[in-house]
């Protein structure tokens, strides 16, 4: 299970001069189990902050986040996270990176490597299981990072612009793969992106945030089946709608 309930979340970052930057203001959002949600919005609207609050890496100033009814108080392997930067541990081989979460749980070496191999196969990198991260391309590294998060069997998979550093082709390919992983594993996914195209391609719901202090401006449900055709008229229409929303809010800033 993996339903996320965000209730009245605000976040202010204190500044040196005693004032504070209000990053989020009164965010309310319900995310259903196995839903694929994308957070989009103008730069600096706090979408990453919101994701980090769900992860437990930041504490909200007011309000709270609950996953399956349990209030989030700190990071937990039940909420997997894929970072924008390359976050694989460079001193560990692929297999041991993926097995890391299991190791922290105290699972024995044989067993955790078996689990790791399963997820490495799932992301199609079996022949790289003994490679070090420096030997992998950017796209491969993010696939390993996804496998590493999935290996903990989390309720929710949080992804912070995971494909932001990849070239367009690799990115499209990774999006397809992610959808197939999502269908196989039935995880709830919360995905932050600044690419509206990516959001329309991937998500069940696009959550558009308003500029700082970020709050929810609109939730757009996309009911179409997958795989989606990026060149279709309806795709372009939704994309235009979301882009206009973001542009508007940027110009009224």
């Amino acid at each position, binding site marked *: 299970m993996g339903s996320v309930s965000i209730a009245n979340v605000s976040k202010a970052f204190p500044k040196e001069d005693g004032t504070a930057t209000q990053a989020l203001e009164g965010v309310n959002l319900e995310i259903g189990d196995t839903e694929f949600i994308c957070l989009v919005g103008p730069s600096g609207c706090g979408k990453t902050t919101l994701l980090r609050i769900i992860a437990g890496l930041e504490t909200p100033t007011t309000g709270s986040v609950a996953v399956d009814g349990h209030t989030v108080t700190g990071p937990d392997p039940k909420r997997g996270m894929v970072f924008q930067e390359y*976050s694989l*541990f460079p001193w560990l081989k692929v297999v041991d990176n993926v097995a*890391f979460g299991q190791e922290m749980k105290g699972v024995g070496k044989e067993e955790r490597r078996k689990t790791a191999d399963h997820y490495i196969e799932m992301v199609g990198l079996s022949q790289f299981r003994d490679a070090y991260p420096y030997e992998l391309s950017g796209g491969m590294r993010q696939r390993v990072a996804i496998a590493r998060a999935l290996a903990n069997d989390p309720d929710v998979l949080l992804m912070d612009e995971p494909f932001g550093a990849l070239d367009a082709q690799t990115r499209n390919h990774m999006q397809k793969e992610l959808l197939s992983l999502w269908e196989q594993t039935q995880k709830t996914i919360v995905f932050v992106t600044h690419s509206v195209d990516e959001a329309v391609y991937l998500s069940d719901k696009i959550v558009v945030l308003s500029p700082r202090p970020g709050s929810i401006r609109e939730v757009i449900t996309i009911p179409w089946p997958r795989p989606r055709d990026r060149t279709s008229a309806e795709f372009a229409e939704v994309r235009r709608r979301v882009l206009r929303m973001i542009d508007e809010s940027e110009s009224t800033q």
Partner: protein
Amino acid sequence: MNQQTQKRLLGIAALAVVAIVWQIIAEYVVGRSFILPSVTDVAEAFVNLLGSGTLLADTAVSLEHFGIGIIAALLLGVPIGILMGWFRVADFLLDPIIEILRPIPPLAWIPFAIIWFGLTTQAAGFVIFAGAFFPILTATYAAFRDVPKVFVEAGKVLGCDTSFELIRYVALPAAIPAIASGVRIAMGVGWMCLVAAEMFGVSTYGLGYQLWHNYYLHQMPSVVVYMLILGFTGLIIDRIFRNYVDKQLLRWRAGEVA
């Protein structure tokens, strides 16, 4: 001829030229072995010293002094560096003390080394420790401050729930390359301190002690022998360490050197 052999041949040629020039200057220009021993004088002294058997014993003693100092510096420097790099309170608490002690030249500890430990291997080890401790401490501290935040956060979301786990499984492995560089610098400093400590009579054996002893005896060719052995041993220690670090600890950093 490939580049490797070319490099080696040119290196040997350069050394040969230096030896010949040295020999000519020593023999025909200076002409006094006391001022500048010639290559052949030094070679002869080396053979004699080898025959007397003290050479190996002195090298062993020096390595023992060095080992005591470096191991003590590692045992204290790495943990304190970790504490200061990871916990802000430890940093605030220890930093003033460290900053006062650090600028004291290691050799200034020689009198107390002798008073506290007498003329023992521990006394010499202590002086080497005084030289090697701070480079190791500051390298460990800096390495821990530089651990990328994303590794620490990845560790947290993957289930490291205590500082101990984060240090043991994330921060320490990430910091190893920088710590290794610090240890290399510390070993260089320690080796210098070794010679000084032995020369100042902290011990009655060792390469540094013999160097000074032969100076008193005006055996300048032997002094050169000890100088060269000190240089070579330092070089070999550095090479062994570097090899070990590259092969064992840093396989994950292709082509980079500690």
